[in-house]
């Protein structure tokens, strides 16, 4: 079962590598079928309630490679499979304009396999392996354009991610000597009496290292270079899912290796919370300053993914709940908004914020999706993003140490304000172009249905699940109780 969930996307990727431009329909059919099967597999695994575990290798007594399905993994797997599924029809319309489809699809699905592997990993070594694989396999997606921007973005991406992973590797090496096992155990497996400053430093290094992937300050700066360089379907997934691998790794580290008890109240928690608060504010502010559309969205990702980390660092059930809600709703919103931005770039050639004038009349559906998910990103009720912010802020008030308890909600509010600032600007220009707007900017553009399916579904989900959040809240609550 677990092998299948990793091997299926890998096989799909391999298949794509050998299809030419003439076989687009065949490729789409195969990919859609395969992806639906994968999603059903993941859902079946989730609903069957059985405990899936499969060992891969045992090298020494403490270093093993193995897979196992738990609550966090299954959420991540389902989300990944779902997002990849919806990306297929979008990419099918978008990619012919970009060229190099076989390579693109091959690496896209290879990356999916790696993400699945990271989600299913049962111990730290396996996680690390797949974590590195996601970086290496998704780098060609960033490099796809092969122009200066793509090269710079790709180089930065590799540099930061690999460098970060090495930092994490150091942490892992230290932890390996102080933990009973590197396998994931609820509550962690830190040996009693090993709560030393060195261990804390190692944990901090690992947080910063894995944080590179999630855009955590100070290793955040690859995001605004790399995400915009990738083709839109890939940047959507990079921001929505792949960057969250860093979150996943930190979650595993905090809750399954070291254990929340060992971190709570230490300087590591304070420092990590401070870093996330800084990243949240910084990302939003840089978003306001940025004029390029995709770059602005990348800064937004930096800020929004740190919300998730914030929830994790609070080390309480409510915090984890907020983080997981944010992970879920941000994935939906960010993928939709990147896809909408991609549609704008593809159909009108506008890449800058100041070229949005009149777009609401030209591409009404795209801009409607853009607006809905923007409201979710800001955290306006009844859209999904509100719930994550609600849980995060109330959790921070009761759990964050010292003055941070008041600073963090304030930062969340400030960031929401800045988010509203940088997202409202294009929306207003798009829908209210003013009376003197030239007619040329108002002629409608044909929006391909296949391309719009995905952003429309994501936008509808953020709206509906935000309005009736019961199911999602229960789900995350169960998840949080699995961690603590």
């Amino acid at each position, binding site marked *: 079962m677990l092998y299948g969930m990793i091997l299926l996307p890998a096989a799909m990727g391999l298949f794509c590598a050998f299809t030419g431009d003439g076989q687009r329909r065949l490729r789409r059919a195969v990919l859609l079928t395969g992806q639906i099967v994968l999603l059903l597999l993941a859902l079946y695994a989730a609903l069957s309630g059985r405990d899936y575990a499969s060992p891969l290798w045992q090298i020494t007594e403490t270093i093993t490679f193995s897979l196992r399905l738990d609550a966090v993994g299954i959420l991540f797997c389902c989300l990944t499979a779902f997002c990849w599924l919806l990306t297929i029809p979008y990419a099918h319309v978008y990619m012919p304009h970009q060229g190099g489809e076989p390579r693109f699809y091959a690496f896209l699905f290879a990356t999916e396999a790696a993400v699945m592997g990271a989600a299913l990993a049962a111990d730290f070594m396996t996680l690390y392996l797949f974590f590195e694989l996601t970086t290496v396999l998704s780098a060609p997606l960033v490099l796809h354009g092969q122009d200066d921007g793509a090269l710079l973005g790709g180089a930065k991406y590799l540099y930061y991610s690999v460098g970060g992973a090495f930092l994490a590797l150091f942490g892992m090496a230290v932890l390996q000597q102080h933990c009973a096992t590197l396998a994931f155990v609820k509550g962690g497996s830190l040996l009693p009496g090993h709560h030393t400053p060195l261990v804390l430093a190692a944990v901090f290094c690992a947080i910063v290292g894995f944080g590179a992937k999630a855009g955590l300050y100070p290793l955040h700066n690859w995001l605004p270079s790399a995400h915009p360089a990738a083709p839109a379907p890939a940047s959507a997934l990079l921001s929505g899912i792949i960057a969250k691998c860093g979150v996943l790794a930190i979650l595993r580290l905090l809750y399954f290796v070291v254990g929340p008890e060992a971190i709570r109240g230490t300087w590591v928690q304070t420092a990590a919370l401070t870093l996330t608060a*800084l990243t949240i504010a910084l990302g939003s502010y840089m978003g306001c300053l940025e004029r390029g559309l995709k770059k602005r969205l990348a800064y937004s990702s930096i800020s929004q993914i740190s919300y998730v980390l914030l929830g994790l660092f609070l080390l309480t059930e409510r915090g984890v709940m907020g983080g997981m809600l944010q992970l879920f709703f941000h994935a939906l919103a960010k993928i939709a908004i990147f896809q909408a931005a991609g549609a704008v770039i593809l159909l009108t050639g506008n890449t800058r914020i100041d070229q949005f004038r009149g777009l609401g009349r030209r591409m009404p559906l795209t801009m409607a999706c853009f607006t809905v998910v923007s409201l979710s990103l800001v955290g306006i009720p009844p859209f999904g993003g509100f719930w994550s912010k609600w849980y995060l802020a109330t959790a921070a*008030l009761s759990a964050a140490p010292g003055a941070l308890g008041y600073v963090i909600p304030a930062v969340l509010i400030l960031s929401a304000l800045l988010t509203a600032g940088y997202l409202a600007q294009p929306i207003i220009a798009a829908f209210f172009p003013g009376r003197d707007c030239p007619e040329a900017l108002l002629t409608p553009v044909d929006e391909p249905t296949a391309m719009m399916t995905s952003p429309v579904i994501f936008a509808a989900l953020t709206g509906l699940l935000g309005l009736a959040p019961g199911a999602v809240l229960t789900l995350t609550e169960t998840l949080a109780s699995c961690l603590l």
Partner: protein
Amino acid sequence: MTVYFVLFFPVAAALLAPTFRTERLQGRWATAACLITLVSTVVTGASLYGSVVVMPALRLRLAFDGFRLLYAVIVCFMWTMAALLSPEYFEGHRHTKRYYCFFLLCLGATVGVFLAADLYTLFLFFEIMSLGSYVWVVQEETEGAMAAGRTYLTIAVLGGLVTLMGLFLLYHLTGTLEISALKAACLLVANRRALWAAALCIFFGFAAKAGAFPLHIWLPKAHPVAPAPASALLSGVLTKAGVLGVLIITAQILPYDDRWGTLLLAVGTVTMVLGAVMAVCSTNIKHIFACSSLSQIGFILVGVSMINLLGEENALAAHGTVLYMVNHSLVKLTLFLLSGVVYMNCHALDLNDIRGFGRNKPWLHLLFLLGAGSLAGIPGLCGYLSKTLVHEAIVAYAHLSHHWAITAVEWLFLISGGLTAAYLTKVYVALFWQKGKETDPTWGTWRSWLAVTLSAVTLPVLGLAPHALAEKLTGLTLGFTGGHPLPHQVHYFSLENLKGVAISLAIGMAVYFLFIRRVLVDREGNYVNRWPRWLDMEEYFYKPILHTLTGLAGVAARAVCDLPDAAILLLRRTVLRPVRSKARRHPYTLGARMLARFRDLAHPDAADRFSTVQEAASRMAGSLSFALLATSLGVCALLVAVIIHVFG
């Protein structure tokens, strides 16, 4: 079930509105939808009176008590009247689909705001209402409208988020957001400073919506540029949503706290005087009414502060404040719809351009007098009752506290009432007595006639039956406002009470004849706006501060953000300099270079691609990332070796 209908029918109707082709059909649909909502609200309210309805799937809670139901009905009524006037107003205008869609959407949201039983529900609908009404402000898409819209949206979003911060704090402190449970929970909170912080944050957002000083800047800009039916609602209802929040803070979060009442009194007094002075100076009819709203909100806030300050003896204040809110809603509905009529006929709003419009229109004349008279507090109209009650409350508190400041507030109250009379006289004389262009005696279809008439008629009805109707209505709202029932019958038309109005009107006439006619009118008899430009708080206070702050923060953010990159660059320039010459001599680059050199011979595309690859390779080979990548591959190889060693 009917509860769902009340909330979601307007939303469904909003989504349907754009499907109607012609403007006329859209308008009729909007009117019908408003009417259906009005009827269903009344029916639902009658059947569920006094109960709380929970919608578990949506996490919403609605309550049906006196105050909420009264205002929900007023909201629906006002919307219906505005919808009646809309088709004629929008004849020949663009984007009516958008207007009607958001018009109906905001109806659902506003009803939700006033029926909300907990602060989450309230906040949810409040945000939808705030953001939806942005579309009204920018409906015309003129330069002024866009600028006003920017200010409006900024304040609305800022206010909404600060309120959210307050809700975070409040929920953290009390563990509940249910309005009826808040009072008990808040009294138990030990950390009073945090509770105050929460209350102030919540107050910020609601005060911004109400237009209280110093967050009033959006109001005089936004109300005049919006289409008249929308201005009527912005002014009549949306500001009241702000007051609703202030009432909740007063009655539930900080009850019996004198400092809160004092703060509110100060804010209210400043707003009251400022708005009135601005209205006296202005020459645009809608701007005058907008500033008047500002001033009236000040009056209402003074009333709310009296509810708090008078404690057990707040019966007069509680009755008066609610009646004041109702009166202001209905008066502003009447007056803004009238200004819409003026605009439909004259296509102008400046007093100098619309002079004499009402000269040959006796019915319009009467309707205007009803609206203006009620606002100025002429006996016999609703406004007189509310003004008298609040005035009595202030007098009572002045007796109780023996503080000179309260007496000063009482006089400012009377003076502001006088200024109200003065600016209304200014509009009245210009519109109905001064000579201007000759106009047709007909001023609208039966729909507009009906809309304005129905709005205005409510005022004498309430005003002439103080005990039978007005007091009964306000008596129902005491549970919400935390007021006490009237201990004895109020003699509205006693000499003492009439004296207050007389003083106000005397001041008003003095201001009109001595100031407006002499100073604000130039030699040719044209009205001029002598309001000094440097008093524009937005241009000369908020914007410079904001620009300086954002500029500084921008520099700081960029520096902090790029610091790691700069450090890496520094390292690469010093310690970790790439070894360039070796990379160049590498054999595979040599081949590539040769191929690139014979570009003419090879296929141009191939050579191009090759040079790109070569460039990429040289960059990657020269960078630290490549070194790291190589190391990671090496580590992988090492792992494989270990595996083979262990298993082999």
